[in-house]
């Protein structure tokens, strides 16, 4: 009985309180009798109209189509170069590099996990179109459409090729980055890819000093090591790599058949050319088989280990979410370990919400990070396992081929091939007679 009365009193009081706080004006707006002054309204300039978004999507489609044509059919490095410059100017400096296909991953992921968030259709288009084109033509998006790739490609002046073990090792980072970006987007914490996009601040000509310096350094590195972001960081590139392996048409170094002249060996600044293999000896095969079976067994172990590691980091990774950070700060203040309030904790206290509710919310988010950590860690474990397996499989190759996953279709290798010059009618077909 007493409890019920308390509840009723509380309800009545909260009604009264809400009346108090919604507030009539402290100083009522005046009636201007003498001057009959008209009270103006604030201006509300609108954002970019929707039609421009659709134009962007159309330009993307046209650029992808043109790029695919130029890489697969026309095989013209110069035309590709011009298209790349156009893409840099349009998608980069004109559209300020946002929204981009790389960041679109996060929007899609967020819309899957957050019921209230809906993705604008243009973002879906930006996400899907390059993937679809890659399934057909290979990484032609990277060739001449992506503005980030374009800016790196343009500063590549003195290519230095990396040893393949360095490439493999560094590329692991891109997978980890993709997993982290997906985890943080799925939990609604942050858009990691957007936050650490090194080149968007160059496109905008303004930004935080740290990101500008990061972009500048990457470009400096890119003068020597071609396309460092594309090869080792880009999370969209990870997806494109896998889809490109399955593409219907592929970029070939030679327009005709490979004569193993070896002239193209050092032509790729991105280390995407695979040399032909000589025949493997039986010992190579047997030792390879043993290793392969060991690694196949190791694969699930790696996945489980990775998953467990990822989940055990939930206390750290969950701090990416602002609610968890707030809850931790409030906890420190409530237990007297922190003396002052921050803006965020003061703002929270002002809302009068229950602190226990905040703690509960933060614990729920941590649980989501725990589960997400399993997937993230498991994904990284699987990637490591598959990479090791992939490096143990012996493949037979007779021709010089562009690696399907790594080749971005820049077209630099075309003019190294004598068959290409024949096609362009620059040289005559070699015959046996000299």
């Amino acid at each position: 009985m007493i409890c019920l009365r308390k509840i009723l009193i509380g309800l009545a009081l909260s009604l009264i309180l809400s009346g108090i706080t919604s507030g009539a004006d402290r100083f009522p707006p005046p009636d201007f009798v003498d001057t009959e002054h008209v009270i103006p309204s604030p201006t509300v300039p609108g954002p970019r109209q929707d039609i421009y978004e659709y134009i962007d999507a159309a330009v993307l489609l046209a650029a992808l189509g043109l790029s695919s044509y130029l890489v697969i059919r026309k095989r013209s490095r110069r035309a590709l170069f011009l298209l790349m410059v156009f893409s840099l100017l349009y998608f980069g400096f004109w559209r300020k590099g946002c929204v981009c296909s790389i960041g679109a991953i996060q929007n899609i992921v967020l819309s899957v996990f957050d019921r209230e968030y809906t993705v604008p259709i243009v973002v879906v288009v930006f996400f899907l179109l390059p993937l679809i084109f890659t399934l057909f033509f290979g990484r032609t998006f990277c060739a001449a459409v992506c503005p980030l790739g374009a800016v790196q490609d343009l500063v590549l002046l003195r290519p230095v090729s990396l040893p393949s073990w360095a490439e493999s090792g560094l590329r692991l980072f891109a997978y980890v980055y993709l997993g982290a970006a997906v985890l943080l987007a799925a939990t609604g914490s942050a858009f990691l890819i957007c936050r650490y996009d090194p080149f968007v601040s160059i496109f905008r000509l303004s930004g935080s000093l740290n990101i500008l310096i990061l972009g500048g350094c990457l470009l400096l590195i890119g003068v020597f090591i071609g396309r460092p972001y594309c090869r080792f960081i880009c999370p969209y590139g990870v997806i494109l790599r896998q889809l490109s392996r399955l593409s219907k048409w592929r970029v070939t170094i030679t327009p005709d058949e490979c004569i193993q002249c070896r002239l193209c060996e050092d032509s790729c600044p991105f280390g995407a050319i695979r040399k032909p293999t000589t025949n493997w000896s039986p010992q190579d095969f047997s030792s390879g088989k043993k290793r392969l079976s060991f690694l196949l067994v190791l694969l699930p172990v790696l996945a489980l280990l990775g998953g467990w590691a990822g989940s055990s980091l939930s206390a750290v990774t969950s701090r990416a979410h602002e609610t968890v950070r707030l809850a931790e700060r409030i906890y420190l203040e409530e237990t007297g370990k922190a003396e002052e309030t921050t803006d965020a904790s003061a703002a929270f206290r002002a809302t009068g919400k229950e602190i226990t509710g905040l703690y509960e919310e933060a614990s729920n988010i941590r649980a989501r990070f725990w589960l997400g950590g399993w997937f993230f860690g498991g994904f990284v474990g699987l990637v490591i396992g598959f990479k090791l397996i992939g490096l143990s499989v012996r493949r037979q190759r007779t021709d010089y081929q562009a690696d399907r996953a790594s080749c971005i279709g820049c077209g630099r290798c075309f003019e190294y091939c004598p068959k290409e010059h024949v096609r362009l009618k620059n040289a005559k077909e070699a015959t046996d007679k000299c």
Partner: protein
Amino acid sequence: MKPRNNNTSEHVRATGSWYRSAIATAVISAVFSVVVCAFILLNHGRSRIVSTDEELELTNLRLEIKSRPDDEQLLSRIRQLDLQIRQQRMNGLDRSRKGSYLLLGGVVVLVISLKYAGTFRKRMPTFSSGTDKSKEQIREARFARWAIAAGAVILGSGTLFLAIRPKIDFLDTSAAGTSWPSIEEINKNWPCFRGPGGLGISAYTNVPDNWDGKTGNGILWKTKLPLPGNNSPVVWEDRIFLSGADPNERQVYCFDAISGKILWKGDVLGAPKSDDEPFEVMEDTGYAAPTVVTDGKRVCAIFATGDVGCFDFNGKKLWEINLGIPDSSYGYASSLAMYRNLILIQFDQGGAEDEKSELIAVDGFSGRIVWKIKRPVGNSWSSPIVVSIENQFQVITSADPWVISYDPAAGAELWRVNCMAGDIAPSPIYANGLIFVIEPYSKLVAIRPDGRGDVTETHIAWKMEEGGPDICSPVSNGEFIFLLATEGLLSCHKVADGKRVWEHDIQEYFQASPCLVGNKLYLLNEKGVMFVIEAGTEYKESAKCELGEDCHASPAFADGRIYVRGIENLYCIGNSD
């Protein structure tokens, strides 16, 4: 096949001039870009560092001019500095915009010229010597596997490093520590009006009972107060807090308990007021009648203008709010109370029918109003007390006509009793399971605090209707309750039934409320004379000490010390040892 070397070198020589000019352009644009880049960074650095210094100077000058509003030179210096800062900002923005375009242009020219120069330096395709390809590829694959393994180890060790760091577990309620002081800590200090719980009882019995203001005997120090006020000193460990105000300024002072020096003065600036009606308050009450409150981390003060300011122990202002000028006929005087991190303000104004009175709880961290509840009472000058009764905290308020108790956590009303009328200035106390409230010139009422809702009919233990003090709050040792009237009539009543045991007319005027130290009462009269009376079954004066200065505020008690606020000075009374 003829070697083509000669042609090649001729080819190179013929185009040498183009190559050189391309290189020259590259060098010039590289230097240009570096210079512009340095310029932009410098500009950025300047806007960060220099302008911060200037802004700090401007802030200080603006504070200064509040105390010297007619200083023309200072005024023009402020305006000049402000204009300078603004111009620098706009120029800085302009420069950085132009700089970024120039840098872009410089880099573009650099890249184009280098690329053009590169076309002259095309290298013949090379290929590695013809080693056994399969061995090479096996070796490369093995290195790559080790590289990936190394990557995995790096990731693993990074994870390990991060995972073993201490974590915060929200749901662990057994975690030690709170951000509010414990009951023990509160009881060791004098954190609000009339000490812990507002009961007027000193935790320390070793305070002196002998001093002389004229000779300075027994006075450890005295410090002049910059601004006047009727509020009592508040003590937390080695800090004493007071507030003072005049029509223009409101300040909070922090004194060092050992030396008596003012450690800092905090300004409560107050909301801009309209020039039309300057606010005036009754002279006897003053602008700083309410006593401040502290919890060991912050000190909060309220003034007659409705301005509330909160400072940390180092004098930094945490926040300041304004509740509006309270409609209080004698001037607002209710002191502040605190529960955990909430500052409780008994903001009574107008008449009961105006429905303007409120009990407001302000968050000590942020200054935001956490809850406020309307009170069906008129303006009052008593202060709320926070006491723990049977493991539940209650905020007890006394006003015309209701005495109301609230749960301080959310402001829910616990019980109310209709027994007061007129101008209520004495604050309630709690002793021996009863709440005691006084209606001036009329009665003393004892209420049982375990009711719910309107308990006027059921929970009044007894009423003593032979008159009551009009200003001073009572004090009780559990057996007897002592009332002190302004004109000097001290009476002792039994707590059990309110019957008077004795009364004695001291024939002095008192504004300070009596305090209990052990079994002695300390009564401070308007002339600054402290009467020490035995708290027993008959009137017995134990000591009488003169300060030599008028006093309106109640004293504060600490370990071996008494702090008395006179009209002009703060005194620390204690035995030097």
